[in-house]
């Protein structure tokens, strides 16, 4: 089930906004498509992210995939747990964020809610 407490991108990332901080991760759909995730190349606190550009690389057994930022800003927190346990993204992608970004720019119109995202996934399949 896609949680309705956050927004989604067309690249299968989720973003949860609180004040001027966006907590971001990948969706269960993305994790499922990637297969067994074996490494997450995390950003570092202080890194700048740009809306629509890669801020993280998720490595599955077979492939490397970029994770795109929904916002422009500065990384203020990263989920270090993924460093030792990248498989957490397979286990529960919605519970495990990748990074939190204090943002200066976000385009909420581009983001989908849970219902829209579910429809988007169906149409893509």
């Amino acid at each position, binding site marked *: 089930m896609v949680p309705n407490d956050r927004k989604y991108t067309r690249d299968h990332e989720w973003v949860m906004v609180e004040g001027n901080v966006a907590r971001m991760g990948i969706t269960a759909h993305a994790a499922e498509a990637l297969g*067994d995730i074996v490494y997450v190349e995390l950003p570092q606190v202080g890194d700048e992210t740009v809306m629509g550009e890669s801020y993280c690389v998720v490595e599955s*057994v*077979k492939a490397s995939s970029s994770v795109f930022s929904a916002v422009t800003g500065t990384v203020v927190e990263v989920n270090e747990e993924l460093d030792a346990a990248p498989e957490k993204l397979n286990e529960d992608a919605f519970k495990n964020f990748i990074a939190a970004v204090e943002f200066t720019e976000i385009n909420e119109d581009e983001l989908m809610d849970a219902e829209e995202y579910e429809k988007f996934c169906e149409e893509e399949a």
Partner: protein
Amino acid sequence: MDELKKTPLYEAHIALGGKMVDFGGWALPVQYSSIIEEHKAVRTACGLFDVSHMGEVFVIGKSAFDYIQNLVTNDITTMTPGRCRYAVMCYPDGGAVDDVLIYKFSDERYMLVVNAANTAKDIEWMKMNVMGDVEIIDESPLWAQLALQGPKFEEVLKAAGYEGEIPAKNYTFTEGNTVAGVNCLVSRTGYTGEDGVELYCAAEDAMKLHAALLAAGKDIGLLPCALGARDTLRFEASMPLYGHEMSDKINPVECGVDFAIKFKKPAFIGREALMQPKTRQRIGLKVLKGLAREHMPVLMNGVEVGFTTSGGPAPSLGGNYAMALVPADCPEDAVWTIDVRGRQLPCERVELPFYKRA
């Protein structure tokens, strides 16, 4: 996907929920359940792979022995009927046409099992180099090949009602065996670093054989396994993959398959070139943090000296590894890194193979 070639087991892959991909023009599954689960099943119990895309090329005629001796790097003099041998077919410059597994039926009848993507190229090369009384016959479409790999493979065969002799020694094969009424050639070979067999049967019998083995293995921990696990297994066991560790630009000496190159043999295609001092070697690297894949720059003491040929996780060992082609003379205390998207990943040089079964 429609234009892709299908193996006789295509319908089985779909029914098992295989995630289908284009693998060198073939529609094959990359995984069914999870690559890591499938990998571990092979190491601890058993896995069943469809490798019907592999090519089966027969060499028949009075000159078959002499012809193959000239064609490949290994020596087939000591092969008796019922034996298999790994060898490399080279160009005169030493570059590899392909690596092959030779099955001997008699002095006048051999089968070469070749890489799927190379089948057409190999046959062309084999025909170009015909000498004496020999015929090259491509039987690939007639055969299905299943690989049953893992410590419990014998248990699975027996549970499937195997009738016949299981080849006792590695690199031997037996004929006229039956499983579920299907006639099979069975060889004690594989590409996983684990004990096991490969079964060859008529293409039209493949579905029956596959279903019988899956059913028999259900309570033994057998999983259907796909290309993803096949690659992690061979990678972890550091077995070369054509197009990666060996190619027309990476010769078998550089690849380090010395056991399959017999310079005592007076002549074979590529011999002179391969006898030159080797300038490059294949080494193993454990990636201490991060993950590298193929074709990434490899640095020794901060200077780029080579590239990775394969890289990824080693699920049974834990951690990420890479094989790399680097200069033949590298100091023992060299500091190794791999450049991944501009980041220098620290590595430790380790012995090949990464994984060796106990």
